[in-house]
């Protein structure tokens, strides 16, 4: 049985945390079934399969699973921008799910910077493909909190006082909190079920399962603002709402504006995944570090540094069988860890390979770790030097500079890293002499270690280039449930950080259940 919150000071913090977790869970539910990187459908570690017990075993759940009694799978896409949104002072969370259609225009003559060199497997010739993309927002999810919309029925409050002549403020708060918490549980269940019934889910499923290279892909964007659709766009759309949920602290709601009819993936032309894989690309597990690159006109003798993770390269190669044609200036930018332009084009790919958002999340998590606001921090969190509205247009431009700073500091501070950095410089020198081939292999140099959640043998490589133990553990210990999701706080650590005598925040699940 949960104890009653006795401190009125803690109540706003509890409420804020519940709202924040509601936003986080909603985003997680949506992106888990829209972000191509994470396929909840392929989940195998289901504790219920191994354990026939009908009751839930708390040991198999992670702390963040207990929020609203809904255990979800890891979703790096949900983590990607949510930390940033967290700073936005409970502004609406807008998730646009976009259908991208790539219309390749083949051209033997060279090309714009956004073109790719593609090896045509049938003719065994290389062709430039201009990347003509069209985008369409197929779903717009809006998660909202309206603090002004507090229309908590008076009878609810009265009910809380029923049976108790002197109902303390804490009792009243506890009653209302539990009621609100239970309603949020139900709303999130609905959301979870509905996300799988909307047309975009079928598209997501087909794209994930096809094993084909499709001109179609799904991507998403998280922000806190949106531009309304035009009348024409509205005509083909439908709306589904969850809530608004009346709580004592305001109204919570989730809504989706979606396109009613989507293309059938099977009717779209696609290219089967070829088994012809360039296996000597940089960082390939098949590549001997000392091996010369046969496919290149000249190669130096310098071996590759083992710190170059193949994490991104191998999957990308499988993804499109595309060798990016990138101007040499962008192949190795001055800042060795600045994300060059080409990988960003892949960031919205629907391929099963890890998109660059993982890369961005990695950089973000390492350069400016953001934790869930603790009670005492709730007012001071904006003083961390993070812009209050991180979803401004300058947000993404901020990544390279952060990364650059980060790298410079790393090289100054960490003497043991010098060897790996030197190796990288050597690699850079070596490759800068050759063509721009394989750039997409090297670009995510992954100085921050293996990416979150990637199942890759390289993930177990020792991670040399880390500055702090916390950042290292976040990026390297992928299976550490407490660290995978930065917006999930461990109950114990929270308790140790707080002086609050209530167990409300630490054990939300207890609150949800113990009320009678």
């Amino acid at each position, binding site marked *: 049985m949960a104890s009653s919150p006795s401190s009125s000071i803690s109540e706003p913090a509890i409420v804020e945390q519940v709202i924040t977790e509601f936003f986080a869970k909603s985003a997680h539910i949506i992106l888990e079934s829209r972000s191509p990187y994470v396929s*909840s*459908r392929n989940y195998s570690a*289901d*504790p*219920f399969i191994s354990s*026939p*017990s*009908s*009751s*839930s075993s*708390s040991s198999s*759940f992670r702390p963040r*699973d*207990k929020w609203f*009694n*809904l*255990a*979800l799978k890891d979703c790096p896409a949900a983590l990607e921008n949510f930390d940033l949104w967290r700073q936005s002072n409970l502004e609406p969370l807008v998730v646009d799910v976009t259908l991208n259609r790539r219309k390749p225009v083949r051209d033997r003559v060279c090309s714009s910077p956004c073109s790719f060199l593609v090896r045509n497997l049938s003719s065994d010739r290389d062709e430039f493909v201009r990347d003509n993309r069209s985008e369409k927002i197929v779903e717009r999810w809006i998660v909202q909190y309206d603090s002004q919309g507090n229309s908590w029925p008076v009878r609810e409050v009265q009910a809380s006082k029923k049976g108790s002549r002197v109902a303390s403020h804490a009792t009243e708060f506890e009653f209302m909190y*539990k009621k609100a918490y*239970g*309603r949020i*549980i*139900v*709303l999130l*269940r*609905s959301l*979870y*079920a*509905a996300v*799988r*019934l909307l047309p975009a*889910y*079928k598209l997501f*499923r087909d794209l994930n399962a096809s094993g084909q290279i499709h001109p179609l892909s799904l991507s998403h964007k998280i922000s806190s603002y949106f531009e309304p659709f035009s009348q024409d766009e509205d005509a083909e759309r439908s709306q*589904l*709402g*969850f*809530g608004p*949920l009346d709580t004592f602290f305001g109204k919570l709601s989730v809504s989706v504006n979606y396109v009613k009819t989507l293309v059938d993936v099977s009717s779209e032309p696609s290219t089967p995944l070829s088994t012809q894989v360039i296996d000597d690309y940089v960082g390939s597990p098949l590549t001997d570090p000392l091996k010369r690159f046969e496919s290149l006109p000249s190669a130096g003798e310098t071996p590759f540094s083992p710190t170059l993770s193949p994490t991104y390269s191998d999957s990308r190669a499988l993804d499109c069988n595309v060798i990016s044609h990138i101007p040499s200036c962008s192949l190795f930018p001055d800042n060795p860890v600045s994300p060059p332009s080409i990988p960003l084009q892949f960031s919205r790919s629907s391929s099963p390979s890890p998109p660059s958002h993982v890369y961005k999340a990695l950089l973000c998590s390492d350069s400016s770790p953001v934790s869930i606001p603790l009670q005492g921090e709730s007012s001071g969190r904006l003083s961390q030097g993070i812009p209050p509205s991180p979803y401004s247009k300058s947000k993404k431009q901020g990544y390279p500079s952060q990364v650059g700073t980060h790298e410079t500091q790393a090289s100054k501070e960490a003497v043991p890293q010098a060897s790996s950095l030197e190796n990288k410089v050597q690699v850079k020198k070596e490759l800068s002499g050759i063509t721009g081939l394989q750039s997409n292999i090297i670009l995510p140099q992954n100085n921050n270690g293996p990416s979150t959640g990637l199942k890759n043998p390289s993930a177990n490589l020792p991670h040399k280039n880390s500055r702090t133990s916390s950042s290292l553990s976040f990026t390297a210990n992928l299976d550490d449930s407490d660290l995978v999701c930065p917006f999930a706080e461990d109950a114990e650590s929270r308790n140790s950080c707080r002086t609050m005598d209530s167990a409300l925040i630490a054990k939300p*699940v207890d609150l*949800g*259940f113990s*009320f*009678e």
Partner: protein
Amino acid sequence: MNCEVCQLKELVVEQIEIREVLRCVLHTIVFHRALGLVRPKDVDCELFEITYVQCGDADLTKKIEEKIDQFISWVDKHPNKKCQISLSFYEVKNKQPTWFGNKTERLCWEQWYINLHVLSPKALVRSHHSKASANPKENSDESSSHRASLESSLREVLFQIIKFVNDKKDHIPPIPNNEIISFPYEIIVPSSSDSSFGWHTDVLKRMLQTGHPTMLS
């Protein structure tokens, strides 16, 4: 306490589709009322392009399968009928102790009615023949059009469940325990004993026993 009732839209099903349709609907309803700590499990229907969610409780799955088996065997004996399956959630309360001992009562707080019109295979064949469609291609077209129509109706029913859950929130009792399936439930299918009257005799029996439809004792 209010007992909210939801009558789901009738689904016209062939016998072969019953299991999948009932699984889909029953699991979706229970998922919305399983308020314990759940790790949802996505399940793709085999006959339809629909993914529904199970809450991963082995006992629940077993019970649902048993009830579906029971219903299918009833349908075998009573083909081409409209029928109802009900799912009720209730609370167990202790009555005031009397001279004759303690008694518990079940207070139903929500009832769902799944309405099915089961077409017998013969009826389908007759329907095909009446349209003089000796052509097997036409038959298969008709069959696939029926399947598409059922898929669309089933999707509508699932959204109806979601809408009901969103609209009706105030009647849910406090969560009594930490189990995945938070509340006791009962699935009632037509049984052989009340074959001539269908499922409704069961309701009548209960009404006679309890005197109030919301009290299932």
